[in-house]
C-alpha cells in the first residue's frame, strides 16, 4: 500500500493574470482516499486542482506536502510523489501505446540511466491494470476515446505516485466509459492505496465514487465531507443554483440528485427532499 501523506492547502489564493479565481481555500486532502472537487462552471475547480498540482503558482497562501511547501521540492522528486493527468494532454503524432505509457517513468529515470527493470515492470503493471496490454504496439490514433483515456491513466499510473490529481478524467466520454474509468480509478485506490483527487462534472457520479467531496463556490470552499454530508438539496441549490430532490442512489445508496425543472413535476411523486 502507498504511504500516508499530509497534503495541505492553507489560505490559497490563485488565478490568472490579475484575475483571482481561488479566494482563500483551506483544505487537507484525505490520504489514501478518493476526493472529488465539485462546483458549477467557472467556480474555480480546475484552477484549484492546478494550484494543488503545482501547474500554477498561488499568489498567496501555502501548499505543503508532509510539512514542506511543494515549491521547495526538486521537481522530479515531487513528481515521484504527486502525479497529474491534465484535462486535455497532447497526443504526439504517431506515438504507440507503450511509448506513451512509458513516458510516465520520466521522473524515475536519471539523465543517463535509461530504462531499468523497475521501469519495465511499472509500465507492464499499469498497462495490465488498465487492460491495454494487447494494444501495446498500436498507434494511439487507432483507439477509441475510452481506450485512449485508459492509456492516459496508465501513463499516470506508471509514474507510481502516491497522490494522483485528475482534471475531469471522464469528460467527452460516453456514460459506459465514464463508469469504466471511474471503476478503474477506484481499483487503483483500493489495490494500491493511491490518493486520488479529481474534478468531476457529474454530481451523482461524484457522490457515488468519492470518499470525500470538496464543494466550491466562487473560488471558496463552502462544504466538505462525505457525499452524504455534502450533497443535500439546499447545497445543490447554493452551489449549482439548481432545484432538486436528493434520494438514495438505488444501486449504491449514496445520495443522488434528481433535478427539478419547470415542467414534468408530479406533486404525488416528488415528496422526497
Amino acid at each position, binding site marked *: 500500500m502507498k504511504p500516508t501523506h499530509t497534503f495541505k492547502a492553507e489560505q490559497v489564493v490563485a488565478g490568472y493574470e490579475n484575475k483571482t479565481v481561488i479566494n482563500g481555500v483551506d483544505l487537507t486532502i484525505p490520504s489514501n482516499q478518493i476526493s472529488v472537487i465539485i462546483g458549477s462552471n467557472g467556480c474555480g475547480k480546475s484552477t484549484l486542482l492546478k494550484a494543488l498540482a503545482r501547474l500554477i503558482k498561488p499568489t498567496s497562501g501555502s501548499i505543503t506536502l508532509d510539512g514542506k511547501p511543494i515549491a521547495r521540492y526538486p521537481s522530479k522528486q515531487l513528481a515521484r510523489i504527486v502525479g497529474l493527468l491534465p484535462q486535455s494532454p497532447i*497526443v504526439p503524432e504517431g506515438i504507440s501505446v507503450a511509448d506513451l505509457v512509458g513516458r510516465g517513468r520520466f521522473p524515475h529515470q536519471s539523465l543517463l540511466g535509461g530504462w531499468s527493470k523497475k521501469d519495465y515492470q511499472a509500465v507492464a503493471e499499469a498497462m495490465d491494470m488498465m487492460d491495454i496490454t494487447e494494444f501495446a504496439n498500436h498507434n494511439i490514433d487507432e483507439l477509441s476515446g475510452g481506450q485512449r483515456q485508459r492509456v492516459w491513466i496508465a501513463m499516470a499510473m506508471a509514474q507510481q505516485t502516491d497522490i494522483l490529481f485528475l482534471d475531469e478524467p471522464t469528460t467527452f466520454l460516453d456514460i459506459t466509459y465514464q463508469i469504466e474509468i471511474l471503476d478503474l480509478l477506484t481499483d487503483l485506490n483500493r489495490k*494500491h492505496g493511491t490518493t486520488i483527487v479529481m474534478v468531476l462534472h457529474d454530481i451523482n457520479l461524484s457522490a457515488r465514487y468519492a470518499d470525500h467531496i470538496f464543494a466550491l463556490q466562487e473560488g471558496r470552499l463552502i462544504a466538505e465531507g462525505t457525499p452524504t454530508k455534502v450533497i443535500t438539496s439546499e447545497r445543490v441549490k447554493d452551489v449549482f443554483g439548481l432545484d432538486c430532490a436528493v434520494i438514495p442512489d438505488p444501486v449504491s445508496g449514496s445520495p443522488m440528485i434528481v433535478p427539478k425543472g419547470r415542467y414534468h413535476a408530479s406533486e404525488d411523486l416528488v415528496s422526497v427532499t
Partner: protein
Amino acid sequence: MSNVTVSNGRRPSPHIPKHFYTVLIVSLILLGASILASLAFGSRSVPFHDLIDGLFRPEVDTYEANIIRKRISRTVFSLFCGAALGVSGSLMQAVTRNPIADPSILGVNTGASLFVVCGMAFFGMTTASQYIWLAMLGAGLTAVFVFGIGSLGRGGATPIKLVLAGAATSAALSSLVTAILIPRSHVMDQFRFWQVGSVGAGTWNSVTTFVPFLLVGLLIGFLTSPALNALALGDEAAKGLGVKTGTLRLIAALAGVILCGAATALAGPIGFIGLLATHLVRLLVGADLRFVIPLSAVAGAVILTVSDIAGRLIGSPGELEVGVVTAFVGAPILIILAMRAKVRSL
C-alpha cells in the same frame, strides 16, 4: 506496491521502436554509400584507381588524387553540417511542438545571414571562425523574435502563424542584407558564394572550427531528449512529470540555435534539412525523441551529402550549390506538411 503479473506474458517494449534496428542499419548503409559516392562522383569524373590513390596512397601526387583528397574534407564537412541541421530541426520541432519548425522556415538562417553580412561589411571579417559567433547571435535573436510574433493572438504559435512570421521576418531581414550589400561590391562577392549555401568550401579548417559546436549541440540534444518526450505531451502533463518546461525549452532551443548557427556560418544558409530529416525519421520509427534525434543526425548527414552529390552531377561541368538542391526537394514537402498541420497540429 503489489505485484501484478502481465496477463499474456508478452513484455511491452516502450524502449525500442518496432523498426529501429532495421532503420538504423539501413541508414548506416546509406551513410556509407553516400560517403563513397561523394568521394567518387563530382563535376569531374575520376577513375576508380585514382580514388584508391587519393584515399590510401598519400605518396601519389596526381591531379586526380588531389581532387579526391579535397573531396574528403568536403564530404566530412557536409556530413557534419547535415547532422547539425537534422538535429537542429528535431530540437526546434520538439521545443515549439510544431511540425514545421525548421531553421530555414523560422527565418533563423536569414537572421544568421544578416549578422554575418554585418560582420563582413562593418568589421572586415573574412573567415568563418570570426563570424561564427555573430551567426549564432543572429540565429538566436531571430528565433526568439519569430516565435514571439508567431505566438501572438489566439491559439498561440500555430504552424501557419509561425510560417507566416518566419516568412515575413525572412523577407524583412533579406532586404536589410541587400541594403547593406549594394553599396559594397567587395563584400558582395564574398557574400554571394556563402549566401547560396554550399559545402564545396568545406576545408579541414572549417571542419575543425565546426566540431566543438557540433559536439555541444548533439550532446545537449541527446541529454534533453527524455524531457522533450515529456514536453510532447503538453506543458501541463510535462510539469506533472517533473519537467521544468521553461528551462528545458531554453536549453534545447539554445542547442538548436548553436547547431544551426554554426552550420550556417560555415556553409551558408541551407534550408529544409531539419524538416526533411526529422519527418522521415518520425515516419519510420515513431515519436520517441530518444531515437528520433540521433537518427535525424544520420538522416540529415545522408540527405545533405546526397543533395551535394546531386548538385555536382546536375550542374556538371560546374556545380549546383547544395542549398538550391535542398530547397527544390524541401519546398514541396513543406507545403504537404503545412496542409496536414492545419488538420492536426502537434
